[in-house]
């Protein structure tokens, strides 16, 4: 948006983070090369600059990491909860102290704006460790009986959309309950997990309690399949989630899966319109829409549709897309060329199927992976873009006439992860929320996260809950 008030560049300093030219796997408290010496490069999606070269784990490395975790488990699980809590509190404090560095690192490796890593990701990461540190010595009172036992070694595979936050969601409850972990970050965003390994050393965490294996899907598959892993936790695509479910079927591994979504954001005609517009923007353009619980389907009551869409388009025209390190950037880069291609293809399908495309007026940088905020109107339940998860900054707008129709359309999805309700009428919030088949229902807000609140899906969005007291259950032997 051209204006007399042009914001001068306000880049966060890159020099607060020191990225080494290469990193090894973090096994048994030490960094080491992969057994077969393989490495891969990680690039910054906003510039395609190579940030570092990291070791590529194979089956032999997975085995070594699981053995280290198994060895560490005996002592770690025997520690009094109050002692484990001390380590977790220490980790949380170190994360806070190093939050600026970690925010810049995450922005470089992931492509998301510094405004988000600084104000959302990092505060939530620290909050998760603080929260589960508090549970470590209170497990007797968590509602799972006296002295609930940990499961053993947890194999955890996380996605690239919130690298450090997903790590926190996985590692904090696992350690609090006395498990040891082997975690594989996504291949496009390995760096913050490696920095976390350094934080574990800084906190004096016993060797082998946390092991980090960077690598591709084959390493993740080997980890899930490893016979000495007791617990599998995965966040990622529904396709991989299904493969994991098949893989562990017939074993006694406990599994939690947090998969895709196609969240419905329902706006009633008595909604607080200006705040609903903000909620829609947060719902689908936060993290470039690369959020499993994104509000990617806007269900708007027909009587306010035109007014709402005008306001939404006006608001989208003010979004600032560009250098993710600039403190004024609202929309950063798409995480990878592969993801950009997927978003592009699905948007083209939307057009081919007759939906009307509108794109926010903004200039895309020449290098890197970018997709302008886009919305489709005239979308119906029959359109692919109303059913398939796009995982990008693309909003499908559908309309409804009555609350029953809104609920029916919202629930008519293979997914069931999140939903939003916008109305000034409290009784309607309660009535609609009770009928929605979604793990998280937000009322007059969207994409609000808190470690105390359980998170998880219905249907193909997965099973098990992370966060809150419920999140402990996934790491305790309560069967």
């Amino acid at each position, binding site marked *: 948006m051209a204006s007399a008030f042009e914001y001068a560049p306000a880049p966060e300093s890159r020099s607060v983070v020191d990225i080494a030219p290469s990193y090894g796997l973090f096994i048994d408290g030490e960094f080491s090369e992969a057994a077969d010496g393989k490495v891969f490069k990680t690039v910054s999606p906003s510039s395609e600059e190579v940030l570092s070269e990291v070791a590529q784990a194979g089956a032999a490395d997975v085995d070594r990491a699981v053995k280290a975790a198994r060895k560490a488990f005996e002592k770690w699980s025997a520690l009094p909860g109050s002692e484990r809590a001390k380590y977790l509190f220490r980790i949380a404090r170190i994360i806070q102290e190093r939050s600026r560095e970690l925010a810049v690192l995450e922005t470089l490796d992931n492509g998301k704006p510094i405004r988000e890593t600084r104000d959302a990701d990092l505060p939530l990461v620290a909050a998760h460790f603080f929260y589960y540190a508090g549970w470590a010595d209170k497990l007797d009172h968590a509602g799972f009986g006296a002295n609930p036992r940990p499961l053993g070694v947890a194999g955890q595979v996380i996605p690239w959309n919130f690298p450090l936050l997903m790590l926190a969601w996985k590692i904090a409850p696992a350690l609090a309950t006395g498990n040891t972990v082997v975690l594989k970050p996504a291949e496009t965003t390995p760096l913050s997990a490696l920095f976390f390994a350094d934080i574990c050393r800084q906190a004096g965490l016993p060797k082998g309690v946390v092991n980090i294996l960077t690598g591709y899907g084959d390493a993740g598959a080997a980890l899930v399949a490893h016979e000495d892993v007791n617990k599998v936790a995965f966040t990622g695509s529904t396709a991989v989630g299904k493969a994991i479910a098949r893989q562990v079927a017939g074993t006694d591994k406990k599994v939690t899966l947090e998969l895709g979504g196609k969240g419905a954001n329902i706006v009633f005609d008595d909604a607080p319109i*200006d705040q609903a517009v903000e909620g829609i923007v947060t719902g689908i353009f936060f993290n470039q829409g690369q959020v499993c619980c994104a509000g990617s389907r806007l269900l708007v009551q027909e009587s306010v549709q035109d007014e709402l869409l005008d306001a939404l388009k006006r608001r989208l025209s003010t979004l600032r897309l560009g250098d993710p390190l600039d403190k*004024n950037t609202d929309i950063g880069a798409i995480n990878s060329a592969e993801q950009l291609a997927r978003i592009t293809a699905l948007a083209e399908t939307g057009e081919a199927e007759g939906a009307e495309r509108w794109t926010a007026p903004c200039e895309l940088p020449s290098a890197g992976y970018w997709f302008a905020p886009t919305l489709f109107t005239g979308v119906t339940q029959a359109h692919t873009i109303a059913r398939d998860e796009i995982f990008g900054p693309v909003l499908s707008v559908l309309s409804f006439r009555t609350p029953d129709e809104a609920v029916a359309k919202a629930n008519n999805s293979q997914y069931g992860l999140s939903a939003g309700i916008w109305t000034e009428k409290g009784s309607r919030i309660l009535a609609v929320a009770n009928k929605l088949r979604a793990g998280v229902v937000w009322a*007059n807000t969207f994409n609000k996260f808190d470690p105390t609140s359980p998170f998880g899906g219905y249907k193909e969005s997965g099973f098990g809950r992370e966060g809150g007291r419920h999140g402990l259950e996934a790491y305790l032997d309560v069967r």
Partner: protein
Amino acid sequence: MPTTAPAFSDATASDSALRRFLHGLPGVDAVGLEARAASLGTRSIKTTAKAYAIDLAISMIDLTTLEGADTPGKVRALAAKAVNPDPTDRTTPRTAAVCVYPDMAATAVAALAGSGVKVASVATAFPAGRAALDVKLADVRDAVAAGVDEIDMVIDRGAFLSGRYLKVYEEILAVKAECARADGTDARLKVIFETGELSTYDNIRRASWLGMMAGADFIKTSTGKVGTNATPANTLLMLEAVRDFRAQTGVQIGVKPAGGIRTSKDAVKFLVLVNETAGEDWLDNHWFRFGASSLLNDLLMQRQKLSTGRYSGPDYVTVD
């Protein structure tokens, strides 16, 4: 005689019609509004943008003295400062206006004649507004007769809070009529809601529409005399109101946050709110003002810092 925009003649036909209209405006979610204001508050305004914003903010100040102890000497000193805010740097923009009580209006008008700096006078039994209508109107008449450019009136919050919207509306109409000068021009009318007393955001949105429908040229948050004055959230809400009012009627209305804005950092945040809510058409002192006094010196110190690279101190700006 000012008249209501035809679009609203039905809405203002009776007290109940007006209530239905105002209560039919979209509600405001307080948490969401405050979150949006806070989020815009994280904009990082540096270098050239900061220089632009500081000069713009200076040019938007209604330099204000509203004290029982005001004297002609004090008002003349303030007028001199408005014309020449920084004696060490003549490129510093002048403030938009000087804002005084009605009995000081003539002094201010004389002191600012030919300077381009406007004179605004509070009126209508400012700040409480607890006086009979003819007393309030006489207050306005005096100020207009003294030659002021702008009138800052207060609404009857008691009437508003008890749901007598039509009384508030008709009072604004009456004041607006008194703003007319013999030569056919009008003093611009700023309508103060005292948002701290209206208390809820829904009330502030309703008051904004009520004021705009009654012919306000500016809608203004507060008097500066109560606990809660201008905040980013209430100003954001009023900016949404003027934006929506123009979209609906084509009529542009100004916004003036007043009270409690003391630092350059705060002022720049308000300008970001203007830029990203109402838009650049409001980035002009004809459409946006700051009701402030101590803010000016902080802006001047920041301006000196930008031009010299050094921080000076309070002794390097004038104290009046």
